[in-house]
């Protein structure tokens, strides 16, 4: 594209954390008016590179030039002042404040008497509308909206800063197709204003759609910088993970759809009229041994709520729960675990990892909880379990004594999966298990899920990637506005398209009001 000088140029960047060299002599250039994709598998150093640029981490070697000037930032504030707006990988907003306050924090509209809140909220509304969040009231407390919406709010916040460089670290990880398109529309608009965008995503389709140029990292080392159009997909994959692309893409090619549900089987778990006021309208669901139930729906359609109810993370206020033929009442995760039900959360940071504990402790924690505090897992057994899952799920670095908060996002996700597998559940509920996971690992996790089902585990699979749901599930429950609107056997007639149409064509509003009143 442009032949101008780069807006940002990072040369020979190295960053060392105790025990790991996260970045080793890496270069990165951002040109104005370009979307630049930073590629690499989990733990390659993408987020670290971004944090190096914005001064969150101190660099051990290298130079950073912004606009031709040698710069070292002392934190995000500095970087912002130099025109670099950043949306970090983990949503970093303040849950105690409202959506509007979060968007405008530090940039509130001021009048004669300090902040003019009316104008501030109006401005926030404008920025939210840009992100397609036209209906979101800026006064809503942030902790009342879903992670995905929070991610959009975070991006809206980045728009507030009149930036020359916009950095988006995995902004699409929890968005569905529509939101991604909205986001891309904005990114293009911004790019056309001559702003440099740094974009990180594990979705190759997205990268090929939006990015102009890419830099590939591997194991903290610089591999290559090229134009996207010159880089064939399979070559890219090989460069990123060093594996052959063919090894990855073999999974779930409709193979499972040939085994529709035998109607006579007794379900492992079954709920009737299950619901909770304010989160999900009553629904029925049957889950079978060895089968995968996919949940499909748009953002905020109630998929997570179903997962949480089935696990007892929230208490249901209606309906019955039958498990293995017995009526059970599940009012806490501890209780669910006793019944061999496990749930991996979509909110990794707040409900998943225990940041200051080691990988080992994070893995055995749930298993330990089922045994009770006074029957500790013998060290040997713990080591065996931990080693097994670190290997099986390919957690990197494979060091069980590392604090989990220091792992890259994708690897944290793998550790969480390991935590639940270690409890040997009969019903495994996975909420966005592949969020933020690189293509190699995603294939591995998907394969793991299939294997588990094949071994007889019942799986509930929740994902914003419809494609993934369609590929893995035996049956798909479709949700809209917190109603279960459909249950389909995943046979040849089902595709992403049919599900999207199903959602679009079903109306639930009348139904919902009726139910609410009763």
């Amino acid at each position, binding site marked *: 594209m442009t032949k101008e000088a780069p807006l940002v140029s990072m040369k020979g960047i190295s960053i060392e954390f105790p025990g790991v060299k996260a970045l080793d002599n890496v270069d990165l250039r951002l040109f104005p008016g370009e979307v630049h994709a930073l590629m690499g598998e989990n733990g390659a150093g993408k987020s670290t590179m971004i944090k190096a640029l914005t001064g*969150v981490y101190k660099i051990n070697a290298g130079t950073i030039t912004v606009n031709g000037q040698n710069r070292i930032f002392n934190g995000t504030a500095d970087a912002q002042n130099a025109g670099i707006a950043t949306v970090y990988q983990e949503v970093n907003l303040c849950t105690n404040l409202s959506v509007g306050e979060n968007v405008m924090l530090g940039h509130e509209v001021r009048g004669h008497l300090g902040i003019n809140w009316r104008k501030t909220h109006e401005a926030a509304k404008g920025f939210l509308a840009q992100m397609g969040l036209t209906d979101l009231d800026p006064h809503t407390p942030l902790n009342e909206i879903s992670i995905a919406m929070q991610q959009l709010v975070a991006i809206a916040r980045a728009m507030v800063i009149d930036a020359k460089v916009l950095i988006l670290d995995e902004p699409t990880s929890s968005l569905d197709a529509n939101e991604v398109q909205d986001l891309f529309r904005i990114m293009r608009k911004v790019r056309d204003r001559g702003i440099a965008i740094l974009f990180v995503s594990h979705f190759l389709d997205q990268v090929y759609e939006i990015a102009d140029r890419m830099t590939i990292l591997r194991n903290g080392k610089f591999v290559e910088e090229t134009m996207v159009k010159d880089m064939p997909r399979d070559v890219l994959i090989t460069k990123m993970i060093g594996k052959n692309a063919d090894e990855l893409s073999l999974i779930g090619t409709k193979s499972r759809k040939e085994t529709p549900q035998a109607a006579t089987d007794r379900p492992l778990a079954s709920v009737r009229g299950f619901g909770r006021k304010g989160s999900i309208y009553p629904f029925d669901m049957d889950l079978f041994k060895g089968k995968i139930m996919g949940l499909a729906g748009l953002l905020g359609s109630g998929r997570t709520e179903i997962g949480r109810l089935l696990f007892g993370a929230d208490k249901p206020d209606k309906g019955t729960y039958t498990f293995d033929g017995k009526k059970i009442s599940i009012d806490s995760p501890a209780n669910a675990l006793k019944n061999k039900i496990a749930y991996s959360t979509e909110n990794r940071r707040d409900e998943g990892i225990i940041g200051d504990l080691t990988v080992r402790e994070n893995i055995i924690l749930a298993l330990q909880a089922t045994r009770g505090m006074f029957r500790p897992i013998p060290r040997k057994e713990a080591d065996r379990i931990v080693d097994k899952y670190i290997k099986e799920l390919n957690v990197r670095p494979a060091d069980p004594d590392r604090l989990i908060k220091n792992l890259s996002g994708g690897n944290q996700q793998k550790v969480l999966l390991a935590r639940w597998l270690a409890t040997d559940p009969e019903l495994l509920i996975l909420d966005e298990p592949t969020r933020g996971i690189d293509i190699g690992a995603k294939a591995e996790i998907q394969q793991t899920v299939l294997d588990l089902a094949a071994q007889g585990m019942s799986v509930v699979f929740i994902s914003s990637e419809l494609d993934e749901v369609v590929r893995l599930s035996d049956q798909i429950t479709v949700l809209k506005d917190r109603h279960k609107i459909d249950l389909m056997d995943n046979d040849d007639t089902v595709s992403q398209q049919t599900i999207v149409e199903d959602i679009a064509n079903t109306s639930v509003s009348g139904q919902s009001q009726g139910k609410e009143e009763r």
Partner: protein
Amino acid sequence: MMKKSASRQAGFRLSPRAIPTVAAVVIFLLMLIMGQVLFGTYIRLGFMSSLFMDHAYLVILAVAMTFPILTGGIDLSVGAIVAITGVVGVKLMIAGVPAGLVIVIMIAIGAVFGLLAGVLIEEFNMQPFIATLSTMFLARGIASIISTDSLNMPQNNNFSWIGGEGLKIIDNPKISNDLSLNFGVIVALVVVAVSYVILHKTRTGRTIYAIGGSRSSAELMGLPVKRTQYVIYLTSAVLASIASIVYVAGIGSAKNTMGVGWELDAVAAVVIGGTLITGGYGYVLGSVIGALVRSIIDPLTSDFGVPAEAVTIVVGLMILVFVILQRLVTFVRKE
């Protein structure tokens, strides 16, 4: 989407974050009424006047404490700062330094301790609790080194008008029906107003709330966290010196043992006022109510004729009942 329209339909809805504060107001009024019904002396102009005049200092301290607590921190040094600024202030007055200058010096001393706390917290990673516990010991210790005497302000100083009897707005034959006001109360009101503006109308104030929500997020959002932390501990220390000015002017003397345990009264006031001790939520007006509630507990226990030994138990239980009630109200409202 759905959520939003739902809240629109509900029309007027008390923000759930304000509920504990509103509960504090309601319970305060109930306590007043109870006192009036049982003992007949609570809803009197004189009682109200002295409630405010005698507790102007606590209102200021509660406001001071609100700042660090909103960020999830705490300032344990406020009581000790009252002592050291008071002792130094009266010493200076005895030495003949004019009142205006004395006030400036007292505030400067407070600021020094606030700054020290800020440095310990921000530069040396000390947790606020420990940093301000240290400055508390330090301030109290220096105050004791300076003097352990009860220092009396010289006669005819031009200082005591601040805390003195002040003006009588309504002067009835009986003092218990006088409505009076002194400068200390006005200072407290100004402090409350200014703090309200800082917290709700300035970016610094919003940063304080953001830090309380999540410090690391606030940093990654590019907010001036470090600077704000300095502002917070400076503010609380300076307000403590202002409380000292008001209090010392009121009683006309100062002493190294002044203000022992006031930090805990201030914390209690802040918490009663609905501010979360872990930070992020709360209002400075709540703290004012909290201070008043805290103040009215003592006369109530004494009027109830609680046996001497059990007084602190009853005070504790009253705060407990209060916190539990507040919790229930919050819970019910949420459901």
